[in-house]
């Protein structure tokens, strides 16, 4: 079963989860729980506030309320609520971003350019080859400008779809060749801008095998809306087979 995002017919079901697409990552469910908590709380607060407004407008005229309790107690309660939500959110953020990836994580480089995503695997030597912008030539099969003089680059695998094994942490190093792009995988609850001149690392662990959408979320030009790619998550043995096939193809 390929868990695409919202399918027709599942819309009614998904309203309970506010339209959130399928969650395929390890850290995702906790984020979803926190997001849904937030959404239900603000829905409740909005309804409550409007109810107070309407009741106040309809009720018969009376002398004004003058107690400070009317203002400061609700305010204190809201402050506590926001503090609670912030602390919970910070825990999740710290878990996702404060520390780097596991040293045993799979290394993949993500490169965005107008208007495509490329993905590079380091190959058998576990080292990425040097790239130079002068050598970029997609037509000749070198879209990332890998330097042939560098030994480490000869076994690098460059693809235009991201293939990952399930249940293994992956460390993505995100680059851009030209302008700022936004690397976003909604079903992995992952987003990070690709900024030229910077290498930004994010890490996550995919859980459910399937095909997912990778989108660009920072306006980058004409092709921004079709700058997307597929993320394919495979069971570990299938991934190993895929990787081996790719490595053999590169060596030939």
């Amino acid at each position, binding site marked *: 079963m390929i868990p695409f995002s919202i399918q027709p017919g599942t819309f009614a079901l998904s309203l309970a989860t506010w339209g959130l697409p399928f969650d395929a990552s390890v850290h995702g469910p906790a984020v979803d729980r926190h997001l849904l908590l937030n959404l239900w709380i603000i829905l409740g607060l909005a309804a409550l506030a409007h109810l107070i407004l309407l009741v106040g407008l309809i009720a018969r005229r009376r002398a004004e309320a003058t107690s400070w309790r009317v203002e400061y107690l609700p305010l204190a309660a809201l402050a506590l609520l926001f503090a609670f939500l912030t602390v919970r959110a910070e825990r999740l953020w710290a878990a996702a971003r404060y520390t780097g990836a596991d040293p045993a994580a799979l290394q993949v480089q993500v490169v965005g350019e107008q208007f495509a995503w490329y993905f590079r695997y380091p190959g058998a030597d576990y080292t990425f080859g*040097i*790239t*130079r912008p002068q050598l970029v030539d997609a037509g000749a099969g070198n879209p990332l400008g890998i*330097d042939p003089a560098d030994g480490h680059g000869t076994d690098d695998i460059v693809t235009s779809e991201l293939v990952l094994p399930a249940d293994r942490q992956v460390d993505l190093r995100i680059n851009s060749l030209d302008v700022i792009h936004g690397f976003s995988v909604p079903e992995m609850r992952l987003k990070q801008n690709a900024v030229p*001149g910077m*290498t930004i690392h994010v890490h996550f662990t995919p859980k459910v095998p399937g095909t997912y959408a990778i989108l660009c979320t920072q306006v980058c030009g004409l092709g921004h809306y079709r700058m997307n790619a597929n993320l394919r998550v495979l069971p570990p043995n299938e991934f190993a087979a895929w990787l081996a096939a790719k490595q053999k193809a590169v060596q030939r």
Partner: protein
Amino acid sequence: MPTTITPTSTEPKPRRHLEDHDHGSGRRPPTDKRTGGGGDNDNWNDRPNGRRGPRERLVRYRMGIFFALASDLMFFVAIVSTFFVSQSTGHFDAYNNFVNEWSPTLIPPILWLNTAVLILSSITMETARRRMFHEVDVMDEWLGLGKPITRAAIPWVAATVVLGIVFLVGQWIAWTQLAVQHVFFLSNPSSHFFYLITGVHGIHLILGIFSLIAALAGLYVSRSLETRQIMVDCAAWYWHSMGIFWLFLFTLLVFFQ
């Protein structure tokens, strides 16, 4: 047919001389020492508009200049923060070495002279400004007994204009000296900033010189003592601020590259 053409005025228009006294503001003297009667701070603001003390208009214009300078300060703050960020950015080259391309631009020594000239010009400007408010002379001028403060201030304002132009010429010489050493705007990041900072400051100073010239013109032409005081005062505060900004920027260029 009679062809007489009636002249429109029967007297030739008199040429205006410096000594033509105006009659001040026609209200109370500009050095009025009466209190507002409200205790601390004299409660001047709590009076009808137009009766808020001898410095009503002056204070408004000063406040306007203050906010304009505050805004200008933010402009320079933005550029200076870019300066610091640029100093520390680098990139990883193909061999994973961190390369920082900031090679400091050695400032031409003439900049020290220019700084001294600018400080001197602030001194002359402040002298002019204080002359404008020297009470005994203000009273004389207000009463129409000649124009002592205007006469006193004009040479000092003119001196400031001259010193300001000397500063700008000195900055231009500094630019040509750098150009001789083949350090142009585009040469490297630090030269970007050298030219940008000195250029932006220079443009502000040119605007300052225009305001000084306007103040000089006002000293000759304006018929209101209060207006003359305001023009010189506001030009002076702007000029001093540009001097202080320059001291700060100069320190950055010399010591913080």
